[in-house]
């Protein structure tokens, strides 16, 4: 890994964390932040920092890291720069879980994420079953098609569920589907963090094999790789990590798509260092996007997924122009 790129990413993460802690409906100065971190100064500021801002920034870091790791692994496995973490039905399944819980009146803050997580896992299992029935649970093309089909089915299921639901439920479900860190707690950070840490470590372990898999099925087989096994493992881990992030913060689009691409433009081509750097960049991007979401119309907040998409689209246009110019 290029040391310069690693240092750059570390710096970006540090800046993002400071901005994420300072920005909000009550802006905090750097001095106030330092005092509160050391347990001194205004108790209200300490409470804002320790109970609200820090878990929020920490959750942003782990969610962003998880999405970027998941997206990077999916892109290498599918050999497709447009692959993303929500591809295997994760987003649709999570949304169905959350909407069903809301419609059923189960609005407790612990129930909706759990329902989303179970929905995501259910959808991934469905995608794998559909792909297997079609004859290729490790064929990237069949998996993508199965993911699209299950995603369309989930969208239809959500429409049906919402058509008869009271307005408040619809609004709450939609808000959740657009992603938010506003309810972040240390408990969320711990359990999403555990999934991202374990899943991320496994993906980094697989990174060497993913380098070879990205060459294509036949070259990878020629280099002694068990193509089907590595493909299945990579998908399953990436989907689990993505499902955990969705349960923690709703659907945050574009991060898993854009960040691996951004890391490649830095000239990092090996999967393992690219994943490691993407985790940092993804975390920083989500924390910064959340700061923007809080800052634009305080005390109201913009949906986080909308902000990441608004930031992501211009980047993608720039990438396309750069690719076309070559």
């Amino acid at each position, binding site marked *: 890994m290029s040391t310069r790129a690693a240092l750059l990413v570390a710096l970006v993460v540090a800046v993002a964390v400071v901005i994420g802690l300072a920005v909000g409906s009550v802006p905090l100065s750097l001095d106030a932040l330092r005092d509160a971190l050391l347990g001194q100064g205004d108790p209200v500021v300490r409470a804002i920092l320790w109970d609200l801002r820090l878990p929020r920034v920490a959750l942003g870091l782990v969610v962003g890291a998880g999405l970027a790791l998941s997206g990077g692994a999916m*892109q*290498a496995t599918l*050999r*497709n*720069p447009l692959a993303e973490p929500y591809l295997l039905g994760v987003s649709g399944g999570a949304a169905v879980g959350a909407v069903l819980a809301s419609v059923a009146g189960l609005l407790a803050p612990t129930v909706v994420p759990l329902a989303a997580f179970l929905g995501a896992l259910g959808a991934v299992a469905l995608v794998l079953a559909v792909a297997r029935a079609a004859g290729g649970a490790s064929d990237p093309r069949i998996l993508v098609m199965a993911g699209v089909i299950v995603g369309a089915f989930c969208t239809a299921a959500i429409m049906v569920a919402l058509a008869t639901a009271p307005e408040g439920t619809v609004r709450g479900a939609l808000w959740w589907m657009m992603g938010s860190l506003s309810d972040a707690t240390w408990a969320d950070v711990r359990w999403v963090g555990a999934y991202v840490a374990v899943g991320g470590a496994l993906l980094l*372990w697989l990174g*060497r094999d993913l*380098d*070879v898999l*990205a*060459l*294509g*099925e*036949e*070259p990878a*087989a*020629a*280099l*002694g*790789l*068990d*193509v089907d*096994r590595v493909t299945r493992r990579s998908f399953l881990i990436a989907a689990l990590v993505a499902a955990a992030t969705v349960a923690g913060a709703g659907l945050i689009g574009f991060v898993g798509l854009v960040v691996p691409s951004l890391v*490649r433009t830095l000239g990092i*081509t*090996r999967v393992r260092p690219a994943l490691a750097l993407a985790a940092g960049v993804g975390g920083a991007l989500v924390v910064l996007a959340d700061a923007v979401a809080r800052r634009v119309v305080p005390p109201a907040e913009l949906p986080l997924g909308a902000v990441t998409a608004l930031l992501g689209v211009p980047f993608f246009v720039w990438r396309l122009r750069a690719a076309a110019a070559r």
Partner: protein
Amino acid sequence: MIEVDGLTVRYARTERPALASVSFTARAGALTAVVGPNGSGKSTVVRTLLGRVTPSAGTIRVGGAIADAGAAARAPSIELGRAPLPPEVRRTLARRLAIVPQREEPAFPLPVRDFIALGRHPHGRGFGGETATDRDAIAVAAERAAVGPLLGRWTSELSGGEWQRVRVARALAQGGEVLVLDEPTTFLDVAHEMAAFELFDDLAREGRTVLLVSHQLNLVARFADHIVLLKQGRVAADGAADDVMRGEVLESVYDWPLVVSRDPAVGAPVLVPLRGRGRR
């Protein structure tokens, strides 16, 4: 050495087997060519070697030294048959047998040196980086395939000929004694084609087993020690160039009027296709 023994492969939903009881041997120290019309089963032999196709009967045995295996280098041959190979055996096989598949396009561009370095994949594992042995093997492979000047470039910037040579370099970096190349001279001009065949010939002279799948009958006739001619999944002829390159044999296999002559410069048999029947 590659020993193909009674190999039969059936694809789902097709009447005729892709390969029907095909047997031949590619010896160490020799250049063996598998030729035949489109759809004759050439690539199925390669896909079986890749482990991407499971034979319904028969086996392929691959023997030879295993690179960097020390005393274990002369291990018994590895058999590809109906049972899938365990992952560890696949890795061992990749240190004995390198395959350059017909088509390959990396989804993400790589620096050429990194691409060749992936040939060392079966030698490492876990979080270990590149070893001194790896670096030597990469340097030697780059020199043999004459891609030294390309090492600083990106795979996306190469011409068709450069790309083929870089892929051969990756196969050489694997370090094994058995080399299989599927249509390695497609897209190459005359000079690059000749250079490629001379490289394969040299590699065979050094004791490697070189198995070449090719449509270039005339170059094959000139360079190969042993030619296996396939037709509709069966061996139509098997032997030295003079035994296989016979007018009546080739005409029936390719179903096209042709004559076999002699190359005036080197004396090898040369196939000259004629115009289709009823034309001049």
